[in-house]
């Protein structure tokens, strides 16, 4: 880890002023930043600890039924907040399927939104990575790319965004509140993370020095609370990043889908909202056929970026699954294995 100046601002304006100096990085819990600094993928000269900034660690319910979550709220505190989990169960499930209990206890809401890709070539300092070092190339292309993006990638970068949390947030039209050198503004979560295009180093829509101060979920998002699931495929039962994942949320009336929300994880450099698939479902009967068509549409643009064509098929299937499980209904209690396709062990087998 390189040497750095350690700065402890006591207010948001002070933090933003401190971050105006190039080479600065905001530090919250550090579960991602410190990891990247240890690897050397991130070498900030100034580390600005924002964990002491006042007022950023609250969950506030808004008069219209929406919620405003401070950037420093810990992932586990949000997931286990009773009202939050009841109102936005798909977000709670996604949170609890990510990382480990220890990491969720530390990691903040803002930190989760800002986490960087897990692409091995981004972490491999000896290799070329346009995201880490603009213009150096992309060694993931033609490399070990089994788990890389199948949507929205470019020849400059095929990395994926690793967050589980952001997937339902994208689906539910979450909004990010930021403060910066030029004042405050709001960014739709769906546009916070950028597709790589020719500038993969521009990972988010944040301008230099801008700080996420809160996350908002609109009141309308609570209308899905009865039919919403997050499903995540992993290479072990827990404590693993998604190979692919999907959040599905439905508003169903008498078998007819009134509203649908779908987003995918592990498939692109951002959580992938599937708006056309949502539109296709709205007004239709909730049938397996409709779900399959929606999944087809959600992946219509997908193409392999390497040895990962299987991810397209898997993503297709997981969208279908997430939709059918959402239709079955949000479980009364958080599943023992959150977001796992496997229910908790019980029961006998039968021979067919």
């Amino acid at each position, binding site marked *: 880890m390189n040497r750095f100046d350690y700065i402890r601002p006591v207010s948001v304006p002070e933090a933003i002023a401190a971050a105006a100096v190039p080479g600065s990085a905001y530090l919250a*819990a*550090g579960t991602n930043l410190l990891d990247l600094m240890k690897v050397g993928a991130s070498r900030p000269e100034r580390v600005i600890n924002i964990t002491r900034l006042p007022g950023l660690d609250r969950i506030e319910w808004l008069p219209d039924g929406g919620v405003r979550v401070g950037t420093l709220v810990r992932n*586990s505190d949000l997931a286990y907040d009773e009202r939050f989990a009841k109102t936005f169960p798909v977000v709670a499930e996604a949170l609890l399927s990510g990382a480990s*209990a*220890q990491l969720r206890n530390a990691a903040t809401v803002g930190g989760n939104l800002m986490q960087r890709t897990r692409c091995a070539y981004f972490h491999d300092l000896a290799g070329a990575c346009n995201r880490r070092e603009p213009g150096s190339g992309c060694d993931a292309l033609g490399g070990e790319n089994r788990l890389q993006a199948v949507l929205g990638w470019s020849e400059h970068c095929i990395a994926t965004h690793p967050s589980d949390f952001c997937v339902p947030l994208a689906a539910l039209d979450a909004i990010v509140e930021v403060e910066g050198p030029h004042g405050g503004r709001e960014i739709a979560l769906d546009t916070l993370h950028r597709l790589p295009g020719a500038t993969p180093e521009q990972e988010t829509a944040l301008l230099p020095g801008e700080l996420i101060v809160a996350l908002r979920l609109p009141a309308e998002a609570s209308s899905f609370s009865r039919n919403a699931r997050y499903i995540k495929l992993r290479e072990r039962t827990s404590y693993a990043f998604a190979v692919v994942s999907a959040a599905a949320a439905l508003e169903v009336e008498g078998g007819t889908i009134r509203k649908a929300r779908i987003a995918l994880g592990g498939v692109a450099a951002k959580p992938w909202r599937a708006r056309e698939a949502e539109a296709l479902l709205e007004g239709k009967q909730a049938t397996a056929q409709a779900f399959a068509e929606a999944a087809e549409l959600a992946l219509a643009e997908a193409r392999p970026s390497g040895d990962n064509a299987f991810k397209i098929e898997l993503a297709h299937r997981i969208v279908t699954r997430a939709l059918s499980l959402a239709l079955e209904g949000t479980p009364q209690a958080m599943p*023992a294995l959150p977001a796992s396709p496997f229910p908790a062990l019980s029961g006998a087998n039968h021979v067919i």
Partner: protein
Amino acid sequence: MSLSIGLTINGQPRTVALDDPRVTLLDLLRERLDLTGTKKGCDRGQCGACTVLVDGRRINSCLALAASLDGATVTTIEGLADGEALHPVQAAFIEHDGFQCGFCTPGQIMSAIGLIAEGHAGDDPERIRELMSGNICRCGAYQGITEAVLEAQKTLAERNRRDAA
């Protein structure tokens, strides 16, 4: 650059002069405060061997900058036993053979204590397995670990009931 922070470690308030802002809580404990019970298995939040309680919550001490924890209360494996009397989780780990080489054990035990305090697992072994999955045991003592957590949780609950009565 020297930073001074205050920490309460295993019940003892201490003022720690940090010689370097890069020091993680894990390296502070192990290399500067002679609290080597907390282990470094991966140094990247990928194994759980370094789990400690900070302000009562289990976290990976390898991914926490010591400087950022000014004022925090830290509990490590060394702070559990009451004299020679083992904490119920420690005793249950021995009884259920919830370890082999013992290297991940301090982290497992601190994680188990955190899990029990969080209170989200109930007596459901599947929930315990899931919520203990942030602690890798390469020797494969998982079955004993799950049994130990279940038993210790029961012991602690009974103790709390007795204390309340």
